[in-house]
């Protein structure tokens, strides 16, 4: 088994941290963009780029509430995202066990 077995969408430091952080929320919960940014420590632009990639793969969903200056974007892991993280962890465990 090789590193290729690891989901390339998750197997990047920033996205791994995003997915793992969101997975710690209860199922059905979302996190505001600003708190996620504070926890991950990325610039808004970089965070948006990573979130878009994960969103394009349906690993997470974003919701925008409010208008103008009071608007807030929330990010939540989808069931597919949780399942992908589960598969990633399992593959990682197998890979490390095989080393």
């Amino acid at each position, binding site marked *: 088994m090789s*590193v290729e077995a*690891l989901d390339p969408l998750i*197997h*990047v*430091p*920033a996205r*791994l*941290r995003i997915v*793992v*952080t969101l*997975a*710690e*929320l*209860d*199922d*059905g*919960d*979302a*996190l*505001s*963009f*600003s*708190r*996620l940014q504070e*926890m991950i420590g990325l*610039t*808004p*632009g*970089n965070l*948006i*780029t*990573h*979130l*878009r990639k994960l969103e394009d793969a349906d690993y997470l969903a*974003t919701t925008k509430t409010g208008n103008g200056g009071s608007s807030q*974007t*929330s990010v*939540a892991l989808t069931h597919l995202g949780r399942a992908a993280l589960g598969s990633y*962890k399992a593959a*990682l*465990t197998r*890979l*490390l066990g095989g*080393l």
Partner: protein
Amino acid sequence: MNGTADVEAHGPELEERLDPSSAAALLEQTRASAHRAFQVGTPTLALVRAVVVLVIYGILWISVRGQHPYKGPTGPALVAVIGVLGAAVLVTVVLLGRSLAGVSGRSLQRRRAMGLLLVAGYAAVFMVEGAMAHAGVGDGTAYGTWAASGPLLVVGALAGAYAAMQEDWTLCGVGACLMLLGGAATFAGPVGVWETVAFGGFGIFVAQAAVQSWLNRR
């Protein structure tokens, strides 16, 4: 997505890959850090509860100690208790607000429902207390054993059931211990029940803080 920020990094640095062992380490480090950040039942909060139970039940115990015949907690003691409760609620709100900042969704609704159930439970305890007094049950029972143990039965049952659904076995154990303490303390009589709950409740919440700290360090 949020505002108009431009992408500030492109290319390889954004797609930097990890070797498997670094990935495993980063995953565990991030998981532990996020777990602590979102944790509602923190060891600090458990210690706050321990002190609050000790102080509140201690004040009430001191106020009834030496009463012959037993009349129940005094007015000044009740005022002090309300003050301590108010401060405890404030500290709890601040600590919870820190953990749950930016979090929205179903768990928030569950917590609100839990809060309402707690209020209803406390109201029911005081209604039973009033009904007991109205029915001529002695002050020692209405304003002593029941007043001290009733809230523990409500809080223990609700917290335990909620924790079981969340698979939070530490809090589930705390709920069970509170109910058992509430039941067992009634044997201490109308004066001793306050002292028993003060020290017993303090011990339960200190144990909860210790278990949570240990779990966080694993």
